[in-house]
């Protein structure tokens, strides 16, 4: 394998007279913890290593996607725009990437153009220099307004084609999509995104060259995941067969459900005869920090997976799988996971094999859970499923089984109209409602409601994995009242009783 791949690279170098450089894109702050920690890495966890990542030589650093917005606001009480700003202050030379998920914002409901455009504008204003744009239906009308804004603001645009192991999604399908996004938007980079880790080595060897040939001098990126253990090999072969850049995560937040390891991919790419401009020593430092952080938080690191061919059937993405497991556990039906996974495969095919990327894994999974819980399949139809079938998210990739369509329309909520409504602008009403708020606040309040946004806590850059006790005491000192503080942890007991007369 090594000698064969080396000979391919050497032949290319001899043919072109130039040694190719493969760039790495870091997604430790975006995808890695989305896959491994249910997106629970806090902004303050990122800040101590932001400068090192900036100096590591990545082509770009993926900062935030909408999943990160949701988790940041809903679970971490953090302002996602603040995350972008704080990262931008520390990451000054590497472009920060933000992801745009179709025309969706919070939840799965398509949003009107004006608010999507403002969102892109504000992401750029806070420090995003490159937009990774994704539409799982490959319905480019959905993302056209956002892309136009990004380009007007001088940001780079990458469009993700989402890999799908399903009938109709052949190499020609992806070539057509790539040509369309280049013709329509003159994008800078085309990305083959394999959210479920279901791209095989064999398919990489036909699909990557086909895309390479189709996109001329535009850049080609590959994103894959390591659920079936072949992720790193797919990434390396993609580089050999024409990809310019690979998305990675810093080990130990690589592998398992996550991305290939930056350190390992860099080493292997160099061994193949490519140049890779990342600083391995800095990556190891960042990796040490992440290992300590995981231990501190009690979160898992990425554990290399065992090869499992069944994943080529369900194609359930890493982050989605972690979320599904958590949801079933919360509902007290964790033991039904295998049945739900099996049902996901069936439902997906019945619904026309949508790409298993946000929001469709959740839509398919919601129906699968209902089918498992209620016995009679499609007797309970979640609203999102009916909307999907009715084309609320755009034209469907493949026709839906007619019988299933009837059941979805018949059993779905009457409140969901069969013809999708036109989406009226929302900004005028928002602006009059939030006269004194910044556009960032306006967007956040629109997405998550006032109560949630009022409760957001500013990030303090005091976090360190080295000084957790010091940090604990510092945190206690910042509390407005010290009455009745009692903390018990393994090996530590701490009590503080404020003097009588202190405020509560």
């Amino acid at each position, binding site marked *: 394998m090594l000698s064969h791949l080396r000979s391919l690279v050497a032949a290319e170098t001899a043919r072109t007279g130039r040694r190719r450089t493969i760039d790495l894109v870091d997604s430790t702050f975006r995808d890695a913890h989305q896959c491994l920690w249910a997106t629970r890495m806090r902004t303050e966890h990122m800040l101590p290593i932001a400068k090192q990542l900036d100096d590591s030589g990545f082509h770009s650093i993926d900062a935030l996607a909408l999943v990160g917005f949701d988790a940041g606001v809903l679970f971490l009480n953090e302002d996602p725009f603040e995350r972008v700003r704080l990262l931008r202050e520390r990451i000054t030379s590497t472009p920060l990437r933000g992801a745009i998920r179709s025309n969706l914002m919070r939840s799965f409901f398509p949003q009107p153009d004006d608010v999507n455009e403002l969102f892109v504008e504000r992401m750029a204003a806070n420090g995003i220099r490159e937009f990774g744009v994704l539409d799982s239906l490959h319905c480019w009308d959905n993302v056209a307004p956002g892309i136009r804004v990004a380009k007007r603001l001088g940001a780079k645009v990458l469009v993700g084609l989402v890999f799908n192991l399903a009938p109709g999604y052949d190499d020609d399908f992806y070539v057509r999509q790539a040509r369309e996004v280049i013709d329509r938007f003159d994008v800078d980079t085309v990305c083959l995104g394999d959210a479920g880790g279901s791209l095989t080595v064999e398919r990489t060897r036909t699909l990557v060259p086909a895309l390479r040939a189709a996109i001329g001098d535009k850049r080609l990126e590959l994103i894959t995941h390591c659920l079936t253990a072949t992720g790193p090999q797919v990434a390396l072969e993609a580089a050999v067969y024409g990809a310019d850049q690979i998305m990675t995560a810093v080990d130990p937040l690589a592998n398992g459900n996550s991305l290939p390891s930056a350190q390992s991919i860099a080493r292997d790419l160099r061994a193949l005869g490519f140049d890779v401009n990342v600083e391995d020593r800095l990556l190891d430092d960042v990796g040490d920090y992440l290992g300590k952080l995981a231990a501190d938080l009690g979160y898992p690191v990425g554990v290399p997976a065992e090869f499992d*061919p069944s994943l080529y059937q369900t194609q359930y993405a890493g982050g989605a799988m972690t979320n599904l497991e958590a949801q079933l556990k919360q509902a007290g039906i964790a033991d039904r996971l295998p049945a739900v996974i099996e049902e996901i495969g069936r439902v997906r095919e019945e619904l026309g094999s949508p790409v298993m990327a946000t929001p469709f894994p959740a839509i398919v999974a919601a129906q699968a859970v209902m089918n498992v819980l209620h016995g009679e399949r499609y007797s309970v139809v979640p609203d999102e499923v009916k909307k999907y079938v009715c084309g609320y998210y755009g034209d469907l990739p493949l026709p839906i089984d007619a019988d299933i369509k009837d059941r979805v329309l018949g059993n779905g909520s009457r409140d969901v109209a069969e013809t999708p409504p036109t989406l009226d602008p929302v900004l005028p009403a928002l602006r009059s409602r939030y006269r004194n708020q910044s556009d960032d606040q306006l967007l956040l309040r629109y997405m998550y409601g006032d109560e949630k946004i009022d409760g957001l806590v500013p990030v303090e850059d005091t976090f360190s994995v080295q000084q957790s006790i010091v940090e604990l005491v510092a945190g206690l000192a910042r509390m407005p009242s010290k009455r009745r503080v009692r903390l018990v942890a393994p090996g530590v007991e701490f009590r503080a009783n404020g003097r009588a007369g202190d405020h509560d």
Partner: protein
Amino acid sequence: MTTYKLAFTDTSLTDGQTAVWGGALDTSMMLAPAARLSVSGLAAIEILSPAVLDACLARGENPLHRLELARRHFGAVPLRATVNLLTGHGRPGADVLGPEVIDRWLATLAGAGLQQVVLLDPLLDADRLHAALKSASAAGLVAIAALPYQADNDRPDEAYAQLAASLAASGAARVMLRDESGVLTPDRLRTLVPALVQALGTTPLDLHTRCHTALGTAVALEAAGLGVSGFDTALPCLANGASLPSLPSLLRGLRQQVTMQELPDHGSLLEADAILAAIADQEGFPQAASWAFDLAAYAHELPGEVAVDFLAALRDRGRWAELHEFAAECAAVRREMGSPPMVAPFARAIAEQAISHFDGDARYESLRPVLRRLLQGAYGTVDGELRADLRRRVGVLPAAEPAVTDVDGPEALLAWIAGVETSALPPRTPRTGAGSFGYETLTPYESLVRGLVTRAGRFAVLSLQGPGVRVHLQQEA
């Protein structure tokens, strides 16, 4: 879907535990899963390997006794051993298991209850193998001839096919494509296996691969579709990484692609696995883990536990980022030693030599003993070119060699093969009797108390408090 009848041999108790537990599975632990394993529908269970033999002796256990006990506990399932025709200990005259020694040794193993033997001659010396295969048949053993696979200096399919055919012609009942370094790929198999199957005709082809690059299971699945009929596997808690593919995982994958007859029983396998996992838990042995795909494996080709040891050594040195440099040095040393296959006794010696260079020693300033003897021709002829200056430096083998006719009786044979004195061998039948060979399962509390009591003599007062437990031990005045 094609219907296949596939044979699975469990190697958890040999290569699996050598790779994952560092060879720590003692005889009582080996017997613990016997009742479950013996009814799980396996084609064979491997009980002895060169590494197990050494580990037994180091622990004060007699490997022949281990085999006899296994014969009594593992029911009707055939027991297998892997025998390497080369030794690594370097006792003068005992580098090679020649015709007389192998004949007596195989008869001894058969007498102790063995039914199958994998004969591994790393240098594929035709005369040695022919004699060994003949002896195996004479001893009533199913003789499986190993055909080592190497990624570097890969032979063309025809060369492998020719070797396989000659092994079958020499009397091998089965031929095993043996990939101890886990460097086979599905791609490579697609031409190699059909060529081997065709060359072998009615002689079945077995596969022994590892999971160094995480592709072991994928390789085995591919092989099943191409005509390989026997697989070495391990139970999940002793599989993956430098070990073999996990049998339950392999079966899951196989069910998707083929219809199999007489499947091993999933439930019994998992019960056996649970017993071994509980032992690991009680003893603090490492958990099995998959390794991430890495191209360096195709350069260093370190097999099994050698990979475990030397990759750990690299991490310990804080030089993990230089993995490819180390791998390249392993490959260079191997090339300069005539490119022997990366199996015992060469692989560890090559890795040791490479890491001394990697650590900054002048290249070949000192020379590992096995490599010295390799250069001297003690093991036979290698395929590649030996470095001429090193050959001159080491000269030829000393003339005087002890005669093997002196090696008589099972104990003397065992001592000769292991490179120890007969007097140093543990007794074949322990005084305490076989009854003491049951593995004792302890609750965590019992383990704790036992550990404390063992150490209590060293302390005046030993006191321990934890959630729900309070132990206080005090020496009497």
